């Protein structure tokens, strides 16, 4: 049993922290927010150059990492910096699916930083169900025709290729019968928009679209989707942990320095005790990330996914709401850093299943 990072992980962590601290200032983040793509290409290039993207993949896929703890280290640092870059979408989801189905060439581009991806899976009515796919694909000669709607496809505005899921057989919520298609972004009809807390996404309308090629086995993509989503959930949980740590630091500083009624407000016992409770939940969140990272390739993966996402969703709400409340009015101003961090942390509950979804799923998996 050992809770220390390996030397490689520690180096990656240190390097990434330094990079983000040097390069990811407020102006860069604002520029990312205002860019139609939702990120700054120079930062992306620097991340790729440092090997941050490659750290998400094992050696046989062209990377030099790929364990749960690699993912956790990378995303915790991105979270600490409040970074908005689409590494979950291009790296964990898109890259993960490419790796699963042996698309080495394109994956090489991803790892080098020259390719952007998005995974168009969710639909207007699918909420967080991974198997609920109403979009259909039917064969037409040598190719495929895609029909349906994809919702809140993160990073679609910047993507070179979009991996689209579609049903080639089965009923609407069946696990079997889901296929993936690799579609050049230029072929898609998208409506792009910015996201709360940074980044960009799009609604995608597929009206008998004849473009894209089958990725992986026909009708047999579900397991790969589930794996990519589990790893993406780990990534967003680790990012949430990093966000919580920075918010904790901001709030602690504020409690130490802000004076009211003649003393630092951190002297008020009520705020001390509430801050202690916040801290406890952040440590619980850290443990949940460790548990998930350590089980991401294990038999009990899904139960840990749901445990972590549920716990972190609840902790995130507590951290956001308490930190704003303890700051008072200043905590609600866009100008103050907390606003961005709090919004980004709030949005964590809306990707890959919220606390309710994972509570239900944890109960179902525990009963099995």
């Amino acid at each position, binding site marked *: 049993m050992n809770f220390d990072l390996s030397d490689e992980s520690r180096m990656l962590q240190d390097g990434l922290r330094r990079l983000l601290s040097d390069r990811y200032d407020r102006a860069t983040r604002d520029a990312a927010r205002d860019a139609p793509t939702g990120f700054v290409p120079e930062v992306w290039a620097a991340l790729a150059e440092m090997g941050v993207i490659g750290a998400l993949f094992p050696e046989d896929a062209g990377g030099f990492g790929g364990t749960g703890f690699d993912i956790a280290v990378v995303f915790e640092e991105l979270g600490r910096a409040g970074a908005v870059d689409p590494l979950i979408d291009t790296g964990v989801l898109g890259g993960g699916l490419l790796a699963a189905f042996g698309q080495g060439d394109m994956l090489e581009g991803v790892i080098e930083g020259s390719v952007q991806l998005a995974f168009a899976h969710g639909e*207007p009515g699918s909420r967080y169900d991974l198997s609920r796919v109403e979009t259909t694909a039917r064969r037409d000669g040598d190719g495929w025709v895609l029909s349906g709607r994809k*919702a809140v496809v993160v990073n679609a505005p910047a993507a070179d290729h979009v991996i689209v899921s579609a049903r080639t057989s089965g009923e609407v919520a069946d696990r079997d019968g889901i296929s993936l298609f690799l579609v050049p972004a230029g072929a898609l009809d998208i409506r792009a928009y910015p996201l709360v807390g940074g980044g960009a996404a799009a609604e995608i309308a597929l009206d008998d679209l004849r473009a894209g090629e089958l990725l992986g086995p026909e009708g047999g993509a579900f397991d790969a989707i589930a794996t990519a989503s589990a790893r993406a959930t780990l990534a967003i949980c680790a990012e949430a942990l990093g966000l919580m740590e920075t918010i904790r630091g901001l709030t602690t500083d504020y409690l130490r320095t802000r004076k009211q009624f003649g003393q630092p407000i951190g002297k008020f016992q009520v705020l001390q005790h509430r801050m202690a409770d916040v801290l406890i939940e952040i440590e619980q969140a850290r443990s949940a990330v460790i548990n998930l990272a350590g089980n991401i390739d294990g038999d009990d993966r899904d139960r840990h996914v749901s445990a972590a996402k549920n716990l972190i969703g609840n902790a995130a709400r507590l951290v956001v709401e308490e930190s704003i*409340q303890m700051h008072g009015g200043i905590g609600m*101003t866009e*100008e103050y850093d907390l606003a961005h961090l709090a919004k980004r942390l709030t949005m964590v509950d809306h990707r890959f299943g919220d606390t309710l979804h994972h509570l*239900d799923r944890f109960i179902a998996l525990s009963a099995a």
Partner: protein
Amino acid sequence: MNLDYTDEQKAFRDEVRAFLDEKLPARLVEKGRAGRAFDKADHEEWHAILNERGWLAGNWPVEFGGTGWDAIQRHIFEDEMTRAGAPRIVPFGLAMLGPVLQKFGSKEQQDYWLPRILAGDDWWCQGYSEPGAGSDLASLRTEAVREGDHYVVNGQKTWTTLGQYANMIFCLVRTSREGKPQEGISFLLIDMDTPGVEVRPIVLLDGSAEVNEVWFSDVRVPVENLVGEENKGWTYAKYLLTHERTNIAGVGFANAGLANLKRIARAEQDGGRPLIRNPHFAARLARVEIDLMAMATTNLRVVSAAAAGQAPGAESSMLKIKGTVLRQEINALTRTAIGPYAMPFQSEAVEGTNEEAIGPDYAGPVTAQYLNNRKLSIYGGSNEVQRAIIAKSLLEL
């Protein structure tokens, strides 16, 4: 005991309902339901309609042009207004300054300013908070120095709601540094067109710009704009803060929010059934509804006691806390209800533009409202301040 309204109260309620049916512009109701911010013209339109009917000043005595309603009538009126989706009556002139002038203002001030408030000639805003003061209001530093017939004001106010629309501001300013911090504060009316007044918007985390900073640089204010006595402003401000507030619980807002939430939860699908059938979601919804049923009665008990002439004590603070906690929970549940469509930054919700919504129509304003309503437990006396008031009244320590 009797939980029903009397026949007269029911008749009054029907009268209010009929008026709202007839006179409340559908356009404003639509705008409110879509979560869009009302602009200045919207507020002025509704203000004028209410004034024409004589129902603008629900908490003013008849002698000053008010309705003379008792607490229950005011409650009924506010309840019906919220139910109908009417814009709130902008409180700064009517609910805040009016009562202070009526109690502490000179005859001249009453005769000049009160009719102008009713007529909508002035848009008032409030200059209490200062950067770095927060709940510690008495530590304020904006300074007014007497020079002949004028005060010269220097300093900065913040969190001034809708200050961008205002031409007048009532301010707490420091006129003396002697004694306790509460002493030496005066209550001043300032024309915002005076040279040296500058208004800067504060963008909040939801993207809205409803609050402002107001800066004063050598602003000259005629001494006749002092309300009451110099250095007694703290007394007037406290009168205002503790002045009976029937709507502090926000029962109407909570009811409207809950109804909206249920509508959304019936429309949203979750695993092949409506979200409202998800037992974990339903449990949180039920807990809110059960709490709200009780709070509505707690509220009516306070209103009823006020109508019988009893001064509300710690009950106002209890209602403030419970009411804001419930409304924030409703906001959070609504955000949960719309699922991934909470993520798009829907600028139209906060900026009043006309783009089509992303996702279902009802999703547009939800995240912004959740974020914006974090303010509920911070402003109007933070919930921490309210808990201290309750404890003080209970423990007498």
